[in-house]
């Protein structure tokens, strides 16, 4: 039983930039790696086809680079995580080591899946993201601080205004991002609702 859900007020760690718009979940975790019945071990398959050629030789990709191996803050561009609803995508990123994602925008289901894992998806404008990605390249050991409450991202001497969806901010901050127990406690109201809906057979 995991009743204790941690409150997540901030995430601090070094960064890794992944550039490009419309990076879909098929790129984050190709479907052939989803032929599994647990999420264990998905980390090594994150961005697999972008990281390896057909003979499994490493290609140029930030997730392959030595200086980013301990990174926990992912910096991405627009519409990141579009495509399928597979939670395998954020699971793979999380298991690779990612604790927070900063981007221009996120696909809705992907962002929801991240929240269910306690991974903030923070947005900032295009220029701010490009600056952050460049800074990470120059400072692979530099710490990035994502503050949930103040909705800011700080690195080096810079602090940028970011946006965190209201519900996400409250869920992370108050430790209610895992909603099962919370919703289970309303079981009576759920039963009443089931009884009231015209299409539910008795």
């Amino acid at each position, binding site marked *: *039983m*995991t009743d204790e859900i941690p409150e997540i007020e901030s995430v601090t760690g070094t960064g890794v930039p992944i550039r*490009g*718009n*419309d990076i*879909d979940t*098929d*790129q984050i975790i*190709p*479907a*052939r790696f*989803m*032929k*599994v*019945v*647990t*999420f264990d071990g998905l980390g090594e398959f994150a961005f697999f*086809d972008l990281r390896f050629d057909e003979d499994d030789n490493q290609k140029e990709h930030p997730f392959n680079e030595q200086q980013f191996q301990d990174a926990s803050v992912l910096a991405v561009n627009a*519409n990141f995580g*579009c*495509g*399928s*609803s*597979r*939670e*395998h995508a*954020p699971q793979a990123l999380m298991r690779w080591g990612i604790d927070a994602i900063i981007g221009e*925008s*996120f*696909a*809705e*289901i992907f962002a*929801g*899946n991240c929240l*269910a*894992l306690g991974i903030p998806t923070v947005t900032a404008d295009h220029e701010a993201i490009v600056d952050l990605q460049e800074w990470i390249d120059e400072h692979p050991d530099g710490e990035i601080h994502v503050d949930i409450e103040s909705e800011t991202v700080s690195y080096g001497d810079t602090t940028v205004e970011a946006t965190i*969806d*209201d*519900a*996400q901010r*409250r*869920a992370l901050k*108050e430790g*209610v991002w*895992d*909603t*099962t127990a*919370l*919703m*289970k406690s*309303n*079981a009576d*109201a*759920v039963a009443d*609702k*089931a009884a009231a*809906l*015209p*299409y*539910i057979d008795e």
Partner: protein
Amino acid sequence: MSEGTLYDKVWEEHTVSELPTGQTQLFVGLHLIHEVTSPQAFGMLQERGLTVAYPELTHATVDHIVPTADQSRPYRDDAAEEMMSELEENVRESGIQFSDPTTGDQGIVHVIGPEQGLTQPGKTIVCGDSHTSTHGAFGALAFGIGTSQIRDVLATQTVAMEKKDVRKIEVTGELGPAVEAKDIILEVIRRLGTEGGVGYVYEYAGEAIENLDMEGRMSICNMSIEGGARAGYVNPDETTYEWLKETDYFQENPEKFDELKPYWESIRSDDDAEYDDVVTIDGSELEPVVTWGTTPGQGIGISDPIPEPESLPEDKQDTARRAQEHMRVTPGETMDGYEIDVAFLGSCTNARLPDLRRAAEVVEGQQVHEDVRAMVVPGSQRVKAAAEAEGLDTIFEEAGFEWRNAGCSMCLGMNEDQLQGDEACASSSNRNFIGRQGSKDGRTVLMNPRMVAAAAITGEVTDVRELKEVTTV
């Protein structure tokens, strides 16, 4: 905020509580599950000592990994067999109905729900699959969820959601010859972008939508997610009701039809409903649409030139350049004549009976091009049986198509149906992402089923209107 729309009404009807996060706890009327995204959710339940709260409101099928050729057990692919066994055990232990391949009811989850009458207007429907938006064609509020949310639904029959804005997409006019629902939705995504729908639910309306059959409406709602909208719907009308009447549920419970109809009528968007945004598209101007790139938003009319990246908005240029390099297409040219190696007629977007009928009409009396591997993968066992009863299998097989069993197949390449190397595929599916069809160098061109049939015959992307006289939808 919108007011008086179907979305507002169904939302209100299913609201259980407001959560401390500000999200709404929404009751789920129908939960569909399949073998890929559910096993981990059952695992999480077990870890927490929880059981399925309303098993009678959940329905299972197997579609993503199921082989479409030899389906004898154990499956040749060990991983597929393990996933299937896991699902069988989970549904048995929880008392969940399972349309498995031995029932004759198995198929792609978004094909079988409607077939059996599980999908109904005014229901909330969720599934661990982004194309759950399909069920919105019936006036249901239907959307894809992740595995942690599947756990929530199994444990509580509810899901935590934030309310979205509503954009009405009005498609006016009459569609031209060989122009289908698929072309409408590809045009919607081209115009509004792959992230244009983020934060919105799409209501599809207007003459061109109302004139579509249910299968066409499903094709449109299906690809809402490709435009960034998690859900899309069409208000229920007589076309919807006629379709529902023939389904198992209402055949077995005819009294339910009259009982529920007032509810269905009541949740239709009001004439004076308020929307957060309205977009109008002239359907009569459309021609068959094909994609030239690697996102579903990179589409063009079959006689339109492939855009120069520089002519696109700045934030789309990089993606376009990379897409054109991957697809090996040249700006300024049309997609007409683009050589293909594979023709795939299948998927939850376009593998229902009318889709197969229209494609068969093009195929009849023709031969698949000698360099093309062509396959038809019906959306469900029932679609397959109905098509065979009409002799469509013979038409396809005589032309040189493989006639396969139901499943997701080459839409996402999780079974053995995959592109090899840099093969190009004319596909009636929904995603042209790099690697989507099983090969990272594979190239996917999305199009409607008749266009897939035409490409199979000529070996290249072809304007079906020039290949054969075709009727309108």
